[in-house]
């Protein structure tokens, strides 16, 4: 049996959250199901196909070019990023991460229009849909009119990692952009006691210019470090040094960095929007992301209240232990088994 997956986003440098998800599912399935009866076809769209040649393929995996009208013959096709090729497919699964393209102005109008249409098409044509959180599942149901019976929730995982040695660093991971609420985070940081540093790790996202200008104008500019995109090793180094993790996003379909931070025993401040309360439960300090005062109060509480820090560290480690990529892969495989 051949199973084809859209591996496009797993290729190339600077992997986004979708890229990490794609990589984990692709490799996880190939390694956890060494059934000689299954052959995995990793399909790449033209703009990433050449880059994919640098990726070594596990056994029983083949590399294929993916065009909308040219799809390898397979019993099942899995679109890992809420789109499917337009060619008719035998059976199909699509993973939905979020529907910001329908709900927010966090990208260009052209981008939103194009990806919204792709999402609608994929939702209509998929036999089953994987949503990465119950929040996203609800949005797929409400905004795209998909019946609940076609949706399965498969949350992301996190790799076990060692605790670090915390310093007076507030770490935030994610592209500099409106959705990540960078400007309010910077303004809140300015109200924090001196001696602390804010590290913003991530590439420059949609309309990052406004955030960069605000950072340059900050009276605490000397305490703010912009790393740009960092590779995994460097990022893990920052997690190891962080004393607080701040992730006050305006919207998230899952919020993988929150789990990363929890798994390192870092107290987390995040927002009460999107999937973040569902992922964090009571293991993070939840704040209104549209209130700079609330973010600042939350950060100050975390800085000064050692008992709260310790409680969030403990609960965060427990919460992170409930997620693993192994489970995500097993659940994904079980979704396939419903169709083939």
């Amino acid at each position, binding site marked *: 049996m051949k199973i084809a997956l859209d591996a496009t986003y797993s290729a190339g440098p600077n992997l986004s959250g979708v890229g990490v998800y794609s990589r984990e599912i692709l490799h996880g399935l190939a390694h956890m199901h060494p059934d000689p009866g299954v052959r995995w076809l990793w399909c790449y769209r033209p703009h990433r196909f050449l880059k994919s040649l640098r990726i070594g393929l596990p056994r029983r995996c083949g590399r294929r070019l993916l065009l909308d009208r040219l799809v390898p013959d397979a019993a099942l096709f899995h679109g890992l990023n809420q789109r499917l090729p337009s060619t008719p497919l035998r059976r199909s699964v699509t993973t939905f991460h979020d529907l910001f393209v329908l709900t927010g102005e966090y990208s260009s109008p052209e981008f939103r229009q194009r990806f919204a249409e792709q999402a609608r098409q994929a939702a209509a044509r998929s036999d089953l849909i994987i*949503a990465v959180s*119950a929040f996203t*599942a*609800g949005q797929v149901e409400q905004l795209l009119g998909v019946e609940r019976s076609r*949706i*399965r*929730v*498969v*949350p992301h995982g996190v790799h*076990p990692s*060692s*605790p670090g040695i915390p310093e007076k660093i507030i770490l935030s991971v994610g592209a500099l952009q409106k959705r990540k609420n960078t400007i309010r985070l910077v303004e809140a940081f300015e109200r924090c006691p001196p001696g602390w540093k804010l590290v913003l790790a991530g590439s420059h996202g949609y309309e990052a210019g406004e955030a960069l200008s605000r950072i340059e104008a900050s009276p605490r500019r000397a305490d703010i470090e912009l790393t740009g995109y960092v590779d995994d090793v460097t990022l893990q180094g920052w997690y190891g040094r962080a004393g607080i993790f701040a992730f006050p996003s305006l919207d998230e379909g899952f919020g993988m960095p929150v789990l990363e931070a929890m*798994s*390192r*025993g870092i107290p987390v401040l995040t927002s009460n929007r999107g999937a973040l309360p569902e992922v*964090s*439960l*009571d*293991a993070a300090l939840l704040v209104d992301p549209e209130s700079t005062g609330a973010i600042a109060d939350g950060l100050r509480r975390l800085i000064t209240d050692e008992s709260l820090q*310790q409680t969030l*560290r*403990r*609960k*965060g*480690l*427990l*919460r*992170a*232990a*409930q997620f693993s990529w192994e*489970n995500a892969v*097993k*659940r994904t495989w*079980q979704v396939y088994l419903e169709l083939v």
Partner: protein
Amino acid sequence: MEDEPDEIQLLEEAFLEIEEKRFSRGWQACERVYAVSLEEGLTVLARDRFDVILLDLSLPGGVSLHSFLRVHAQAPETPIIVLTSSEDEPLALSLVRQGAQDYLIKSDLDCAPLARVLRCSIERNRLSVVQQSISLMDDLTTLYNHRGLTHLGERHWNLAQQHKLHVLVMQASLPGLDKIREALSMQERDIALIEAADLLRGAFSETDLIARTGTEQFTAIALLETSAAVQEKIHHISRQLSGLATLQLGWAYSEETRLEDLLTLAGRSLCENRLVENRAGCYL
């Protein structure tokens, strides 16, 4: 438990003498109930609790060892003193090894040895019950431990069978404890366990049996009258524990299968919850 009227008379006289003489300091007048057959004795024991049982081994309806085992099973926490003839002393001794507190030779029955044996038996038994209950508890969480669950679970099960109740079993796990010990400290790991135990104590009722059955594992057993009540209980507890980043739950219930099977099923449900129980969008 004695069928011979003469023996009953003798015992009564001994008791009266003890009470008249106030044989030992602190002796309190006691109420005595006589059963003249094994069946009557078992009925009385099922109805009332006693401080001590005097058991004649030659009761009608039973044969020595058999009589003792049935009485002991009916009232496992009540001390039993065996009344025997001198010829049966070896048997009486063997019953002490099986759990009787002491024995008295009928021909030697007098107020002094009777008073001493009664008081010593009650005290020894009290100590033994306390020790046993301590060894059934988990020191850290003060919930029952695995031994406590096995010991008391069987009683819950028997009660359910007698009264045709549904048995609900919940298995809960607390993954991530090792990470807490590694990242924070052993003390923080213990706090996490205590917090989880408190959550369970708050979610279940006092009549339910809750135990810490492994390093990061908890088990609870509840008896309910109807399957609707079972569903309601599952819903109630899940709601109580949802939103808390601590416990993963698995459930099983039945009025038919064996307790061990239910425990296994609940454990499997716990594992499967992590893997397949995702249609409702809930993966706690």
